[in-house]
């Protein structure tokens, strides 16, 4: 019996360690992709695009490991929350890595075009903020720090405001003929990638809160839907919080 528990804990530790490592690779790839975008480094873009295959494989393996633990060990309580959260986090990380790849692909499309310095400045800031978000998110996960995880959402609002500022600036730069339409469209999409990376960081931090306290985000949409169809079974809540 003891051996089984030991294996189980080893597997759980391995899954957590892999989340932390995937998170570190992702965090590092954000400034790397930005440097590629701003310097038009096509070789670097190819390297990151290819590296994503390994990332995908690793996150798929991580999920498989979690399914195995679920099937063979049937964990409960905190351990169960841990496994469920890791399965979800693996998806978030994988999707975020795809967005980083998308930034590299955009670098290929705008290669050779000049980017207005003001836009370059805002891109750097968005990248820094997205990286900071993931850095803090992964720290919160590693340290099981629910308070730090809860702060990520607030940090993300700055990235959102940078995104809005960037879109506004694209219109201005375009109307002053500082960038052509093709670049303007590509850059608008790139800005969206950074903004989405930030959202994924918020999702990961919510999963961390779920692991530590069982907290689940309020499902306002579900209750609106229930009210609309006349369902009177009461408010939908997932009550998993620890007592």
């Amino acid at each position, binding site marked *: 019996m003891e051996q089984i528990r030991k294996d189980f804990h080893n597997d759980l530790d391995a899954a957590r360690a892999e989340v932390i490592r995937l*998170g*570190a690779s992702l*965090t590092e790839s954000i400034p*790397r992709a930005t440097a590629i975008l*701003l310097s038009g480094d096509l070789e670097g873009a190819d390297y990151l695009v290819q590296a994503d295959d390994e990332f995908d494989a690793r996150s798929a393996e991580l999920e498989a490991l979690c399914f195995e633990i679920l099937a063979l060990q049937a964990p409960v309580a905190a351990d169960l929350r841990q496994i469920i959260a890791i399965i979800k986090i693996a998806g978030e990380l994988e999707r975020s890595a795809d967005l980083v790849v998308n930034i590299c692909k955009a670098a290929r499309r705008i290669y050779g075009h000049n980017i207005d*310095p003001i836009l370059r*400045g805002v891109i*750097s800031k968005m990248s820094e903020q997205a990286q900071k978000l993931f*850095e803090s998110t992964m720290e919160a996960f590693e340290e099981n720090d629910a308070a730090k995880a809860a702060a990520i959402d607030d940090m993300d609002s700055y990235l959102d405001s940078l995104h809005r500022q960037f879109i506004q600036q694209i219109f201005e730069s375009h109307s002053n003929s500082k960038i052509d339409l093709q670049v303007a469209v590509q850059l608008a999409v790139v800005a969206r990638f950074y903004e989405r990376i930030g959202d994924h960081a918020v999702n990961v931090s919510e999963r961390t809160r779920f692991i530590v306290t069982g907290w689940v985000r309020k499902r306002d949409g579900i209750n609106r839907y229930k009210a609309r169809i006349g369902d009177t079974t009461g408010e939908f809540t997932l009550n998993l919080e620890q007592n």
Partner: protein
Amino acid sequence: MGVVYFLIGVLLATAIAFLISKRSTREIQLALTNKSAVTKSTTRDNFVQLFEILDFLETGVIVADNNSNHKFRNKAAIAMTGIRYVDILIDQAVDEMIKQLEQEGTGSRILEAVAGTTRFLQIRGRNLKNEYILVTVEDITAKSRIETVQTDFVANLSHELKTPIGAVAALADSLNGETETAVVWRLAERIVSESHRMARIVDALLDLSRIEFSGTEDWTEVDLAPVLVEVVSTNQHAAKRQGIELSLTGASHLNVLGDRSQLLSGFSNLVDNAIKYSEPGGIVSVSSSIVGQLVVVAITDHGIGISKQHQDRIFERFYRVDKARSRATGGTGLGLSIVRHIVLEHGGSIDIVSEEGIGSTFTIRLPHFVSESTDMPTITTGVSL
């Protein structure tokens, strides 16, 4: 238990020998076979000492067994960079190295991690007699940066000099046998301008070495206030032509000890740059003040700005942020490195704060000189930046 301690002891002693004297494998093997000599002197105290020595090293040292279990990590190996995600990536690379060496052999790789600037970490591994695996991690960022600067300098220097020489040769070739006066004039004019460009670069290079080797014998007390007035008035014309407002504000009696003409050319270079990289309608301001025991001069523009990745390289000789644009602005590529040399020679410092699209501020701090004969108020000591 004692056996394990003994083994680890032998290995760590070997590790130190390997690290410090970089002995060959053969020598390490000899040391390993000479176990009996070590046994007698190996005590717990020796281990403590050994760990302390290893913790003192800046190189990360990790010892693992054949099943990839870490047996020892020194302090440096626990937090190599202090940046959490980079440290995790290093851990991962170390584990990969250990796995790769589980059977035997040696390995080496360079890990590149982007954290603000790019960090380079060299990871070396060695399987010690199929029993333990030793991995070392070394931060070689500074070393590789120096290498890049050197190779870039040589490449850029030859490029910068070869371009005008090539042009002169081609133009002279066309001139040979040309009879039409207008064409001859045009070609000759181009030859003159290209040779001037080359002369400018050579002059700038000579300036650089002159500043490096010039002593402090000729230094006098220089008031920077009139120097700045002169800099601004000589650049005013160029600023007006580009539609840029150039302003000067600040304190008087900014005395420093130094070479007036060098200081003048340094500040002039910065103002000239600020104008070059501003858009028409922009503002370039020069402001000066005394902060503590320092004279602080800030030159601010609202131009294109410099991205973070270039900021720590722009003072290098011939370093270009945007090669195409530099050709258009006609610089030698040596201006900023001359400025930096002058400021450092005068015991000062130069910093840059810049954001792309917002502008740049170059701040120069020089030691404030208070001569005993003047009636200047004495500066309160203990106040510094």
